[in-house]
């Protein structure tokens, strides 16, 4: 299950943080752990892809503030 299109970087990063925290805190359940690990790898991949986007877009509002 790849992260959905509308999932943004912030959400993906947050989920990755939660997974890391889960492993640090308990993570005794191996089956759950394996699932979470897989999900973590997907999220990390998604985040890295997002980070490789080169540009910030700048859009100047058409409405004139400068008179």
């Amino acid at each position: 299950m790849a992260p959905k299109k509308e999932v943004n970087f912030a959400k993906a990063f947050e989920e990755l943080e939660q997974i890391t925290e889960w492993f640090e805190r308990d993570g005794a359940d191996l089956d759950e752990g394996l699932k979470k690990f897989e999900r973590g790898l997907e999220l990390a991949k998604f985040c890295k892809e997002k980070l490789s986007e080169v540009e910030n877009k700048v859009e100047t509002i058409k409405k004139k503030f400068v008179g």
Partner: protein
Amino acid sequence: MDEVLSVSDFLRLANEVLRLNIQNGAFAIEGEISGYSVKDGKWIIFSLKDEVDEKSKLKCFATVYKVAGSFEDGMRVRVWGGPSIKPWSDFQLDVQRMEPVGEGALKRAYELLKLKLEQEGIFALARKRSIPKFPDRIGLITSSDAAAYGDFLRILNNRWSGVKVIHADVRVQGKDAVDHIISAFDYFNGLGETDRPDVIVLTRGGGSLEDLHAFNDERVVRAVYGSSIPVVCGVGHERDESLCDYAADVRASTPSNAAERIVPDRRDVEYTIKMMVERVGDTLHRRLDDRGQVIQTAERVMAHFLEGRKREADNVIQRLLLQTNSWILSIRQRIDSEERLLRNVDPTRILSRGYSIVKSGTKVIKDAKTLAAGDEITVQFARGTVDAEVK
């Protein structure tokens, strides 16, 4: 014939002449405030004194809605407005705009306003909101002519990507700056949920107190305070400060610093992601190893246990065999001794030594008196028997 006018008609005519000849706000009149007072929290009344001729005074009237900021007696100001003659009063100026003049007055006005807003809780730390860690959209309020614009975007691009910057091109100094900045705030806050920036940046380069007046204007400070979108304010150089800085959720020291405060550094985040994945992987491997250890230990314990059982069983069998052997031995010994005993009492063994057994019929004769002459008897020897008759 001279035209006769009522007093009120004459005043109306005079006001008409004044209005036509001295346009509202056409001049800035500079002087020193005296007799400053605010009535009912709404009406501002004061006189403007002339520097040259102490007797020259101009009555001024304003409202707190038009004139924001804090003023006091002795402060040098410039006022803009329209003159009129009120029927109930004298010649006066309806003030539309008023600004302190000179560093001293500006500084004093700044201090007074700062104190007032502070007391109102506009700068309270408790109301500061945190800005999102990874904003998608940034509302940028600054002038495209300013160095601040370039500085902000350069640092933003160095650090982070994938962000949409919505730029409101406004004047950051001069008489329109205040209105521009306020309407930019209104614009951003009025956007729908999907277009709304996650954070607003209000920024400009450094300058004198006069240059920064818009960033110390009460209405702009209130716009920062009232924004439902968190605000980062970055003005000038490290040491410059503005009232907007204090009202903002995050105070940045420069336009570049504003970019640093808003977006993380790509390299830091890449490192963090790498560390998180490694950490999770390590933990998982350790857990798996732990499991392996448990299984191995269990195997060892089981083997040990079984070994023990086997040894115990062997012992039991050994002991059982031992017991059985000695039991068989004792049985054999008993049989042997019985046999010996039996053999000792065997009467045929006595016969072999020369004794004989005398029977009458089947009865063994132990007393000679039981026999009479003529009785038939059988004599048994060790080997063979004979029949005889008693004489």
